[in-house]
């Protein structure tokens, strides 16, 4: 028990299920065996019954045939007796009548007329003419003599005594030991005196052969016995040993127990008339069913073999079904994860766009290797587009990394070439899979139209203004190739209305069914078709439509990404005011900011914050940039593209950077807190950025805040 348990508890489920399958097959085999045995017994019974019936029919037919033969002989005797009687008075014609007698019946092979002693005194005591058929010729001769005294014959005396016709038991006679039986009939002469016994011999040798000509089994045979049970005729010596036959006869006569030959079955039928012979059929019960048993055994082996094959196949099937299930579960898990990855990636892409920029990614697969991004700070839109080598998950991972790096680095670093350098160094670090990415980034000053850009092997963007041209961007190497690549920075100032169209090769290499690429020429055509006033979103959707129309039914083979930036100062709200360096001017400043904010979609709290921030820095300038109480002016320019507000505060006072003033420590308690430093703190906290520069002998302070 312990062993059993330990065996099963240690087994893996695969083995267990295999064992259970083997168990099932075993049970099935036992069931099949039981069914087979029951069936066998049933069939055996049926067969035995059938055999008995058949044997009865066969024996009945045989018996009928013998009886018929006997009757024919008896009829022959009766029909010819008058002729014999007629000839009794003329002894010279007796021979002829004997010939006629035996000629009448083909089964009769011989006939005799044994006269009572001294019937014809002239011929002596014994007289017996005997006719015999030999090769179709009948010869008659007198056979009685000292060597053949028929008066001693039992049959002769029996017939004479009883005056009844009688059949002898079969006997062997002659050189061939043929089997004969004789029908004896008492013959009276016309005077009514008993004259002779007429005998007709029939040959029974054929009987033995006929009886055994068709036996149902190899070991079965038939015999003919006399009424007393002695053998008349049986199977030939060649087929069955005389010993077996005589033993069987002994069993039949009860002189030997039935157990002497085990499994012996005997069927017996007896003539219901003289000579009351018995017909016997003998067979071995076992042997009768040997073939059936052999058949059953073969059948059993076949079934077991089939079951084993079945078990093997179900095992194989179960195994492959499990594998299939595991694979599909794995597939489901992977696709679930992929869809999560897709969501993450989609989340990374910008969703909302101010009017001057628009971008889109159409991934060929769940996740893609294309990237674009933008953000706005300090009055500039920073944007990038990139294409990671390869597709699918590895490309997507690198894409995520690039996008995160871009966000991190470009938030602090204004110079595109520096951003690219840092990105490149990071990508080259541990880049064992040798992946790389083409990348283009730029920053467009939303107010001046100045664009600074650097390229890392990306397709040159289109520059769309009065005419369409490729941006003359230096190609450089892609990111991730060599860590020390230098990415040259370039600058271009856009005229108002200029549009920069960036794309990945998924656009130009979009294929139709004939494997033809969309191409740069087609892109150019579509761009030409765009009206001058078309928004970046319009441009992207026109091209997307055109590319899809071109590709038709052909599946998208690569990620398709587009990014459009437009310099549109028409969208910019700009107001200016000049203040003298007097704190009373703050009221004017307040009115100015309020008026400006009223034209923008800002809530009162944000408007109040903008006003406060600007007031604080302007007050600082008034207080500190003009230390000698000299008169001066502070000019303020307020710009907004409805996405961002930018204040530029310019004065010609002494160099003064308000951002360098120590901020108040907001964690101190009332007693220890200094009075100053609150203004800069507030301005910093209320705005997104404050930057100071000294240009052309002026202090230039720029404050920006995103409002949408």
């Amino acid at each position, binding site marked *: 028990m312990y062993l059993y348990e330990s065996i099963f508890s240690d087994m893996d489920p695969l083995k267990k299920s295999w064992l259970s399958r083997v168990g099932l097959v075993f049970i099935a085999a036992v069931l099949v065996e039981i069914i087979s045995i029951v069936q066998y017994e049933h069939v055996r019974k049926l067969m035995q019954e059938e055999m008995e019936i058949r044997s009865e029919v066969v024996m009945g037919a045989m018996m009928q045939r013998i009886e018929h033969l006997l009757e024919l002989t008896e009829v022959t005797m009766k029909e010819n007796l008058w002729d014999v009687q007629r000839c009794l008075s003329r002894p010279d014609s007796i021979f002829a009548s004997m010939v006629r007698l035996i000629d009448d019946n083909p089964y009769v092979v011989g006939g005799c007329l044994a006269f009572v002693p001294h019937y014809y005194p002239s011929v002596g005591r014994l007289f017996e003419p005997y006719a015999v058929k030999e090769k179709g010729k009948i010869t008659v001769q007198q056979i009685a003599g000292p060597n053949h005294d028929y008066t001693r014959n039992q049959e002769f005396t029996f017939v004479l005594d009883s005056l009844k016709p009688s059949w002898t038991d079969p006997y062997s006679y002659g050189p061939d030991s043929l089997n004969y039986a004789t029908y004896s009939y008492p013959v009276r002469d016309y005077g009514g005196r008993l004259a002779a016994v007429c005998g007709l011999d029939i040959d029974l040798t054929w009987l033995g052969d006929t009886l055994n000509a068709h036996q149902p089994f190899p070991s079965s045979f038939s015999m003919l016995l006399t009424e007393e049970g002695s053998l008349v005729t049986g199977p030939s010596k060649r087929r069955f040993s005389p010993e077996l036959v005589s033993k069987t006869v002994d069993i039949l006569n009860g002189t030997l127990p039935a157990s002497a030959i085990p499994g012996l079955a005997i069927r017996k039928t007896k003539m219901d008339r003289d000579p009351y012979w018995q017909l016997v059929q003998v067979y071995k019960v076992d042997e009768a069913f040997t073939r059936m048993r052999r058949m059953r055994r073969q059948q059993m082996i076949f079934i077991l073999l089939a079951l084993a094959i079945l078990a093997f196949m179900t095992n194989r099937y179960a195994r492959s079904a499990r594998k299939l299930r595991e694979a599909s579960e794995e597939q489901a898990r992977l696709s679930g994860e992929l869809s999560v990855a897709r969501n993450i990636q989609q989340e990374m892409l910008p969703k909302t766009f101010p009017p001057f920029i628009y971008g889109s990614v159409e991934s060929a697969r769940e996740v893609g290797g294309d990237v674009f991004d933008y953000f706005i700070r300090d009055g500039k839109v920073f944007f990038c587009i990139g294409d990671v080598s390869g597709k699918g998950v590895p490309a997507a991972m690198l894409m995520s990394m690039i996008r995160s790096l871009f966000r991190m680095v470009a938030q602090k670093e204004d110079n595109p070439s520096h951003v690219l350098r840092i990105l490149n160094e990071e990508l080259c670090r541990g880049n064992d899979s040798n992946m790389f990415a083409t990348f283009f980034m730029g920053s467009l000053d939303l107010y001046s139209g100045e664009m600074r850009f650097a390229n890392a092997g990306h397709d040159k963007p289109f520059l769309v203004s009065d005419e369409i041209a490729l941006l003359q961007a230096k190609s450089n190497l892609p990111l991730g190739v060599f860590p020390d690549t230098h990415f040259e920075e370039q600058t271009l100032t856009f005229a108002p209305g200029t549009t920069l169209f960036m794309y990945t090769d998924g656009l130009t290499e979009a294929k139709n069914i004939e494997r033809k690429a969309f191409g740069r020429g087609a892109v150019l055509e579509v761009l030409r078709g765009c009206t001058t006033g078309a928004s970046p979103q319009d441009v992207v959707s026109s091209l997307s439509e055109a590319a899809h129309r071109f590709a038709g039914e052909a599946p998208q083979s690569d990620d398709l990404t587009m990014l459009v930036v437009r310099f549109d100062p028409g969208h910019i709200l700009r107001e200016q005011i000049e203040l003298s360096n007097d*704190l009373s001017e703050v*009221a004017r400043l307040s009115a100015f900011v309020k008026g400006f904010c009223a034209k923008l979609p800002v809530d009162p*709290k944000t408007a109040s914050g903008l006003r406060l921030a600007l007031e604080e820095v302007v007050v600082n300038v008034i207080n500190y940039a003009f230390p000698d109480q000299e008169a001066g002016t502070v000019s303020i320019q307020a710009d907004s593209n409805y996405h961002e507000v930018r204040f530029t505060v310019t004065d010609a006072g002494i160099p003064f950077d308000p951002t360098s003033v120590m901020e108040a*420590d*907001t964690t101190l308690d009332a007693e220890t807190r200094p009075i100053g430093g609150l203004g800069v703190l*507030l301005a910093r906290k*209320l705005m997104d950025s404050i930057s100071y520069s000294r240009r052309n002998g002026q202090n230039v302070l720029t404050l920006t805040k995103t409002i949408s």
Partner: protein
Amino acid sequence: MTTTIQEIDGKIVASLSGELDTAAAQEAEKALQPLLSCEGKEIVIDCTNLDYIASSGLRIFLSILKQAKGVGSRVVLKNVNDVIRDVLELTGFISIFEFE
């Protein structure tokens, strides 16, 4: 910017109304001078009608608070609106004043 000072139930209540920006601060500082000699009475600055405050205004509040604390009194800001509360939070003043 208007300022009124009353003594109610032994408390000095200063009610401010309008915008306390940098320009208004000089005037307000003078108007609120009496609060710097509160003689231990509790000071309530009622901001119900105060719409705006700049850092100069905050500085006045801070000097009133410092003086009051120095004589063991307290300063309570009353009915501060959301805009001003934001400014107080940004500057950390929310933790040194009492509110009601």
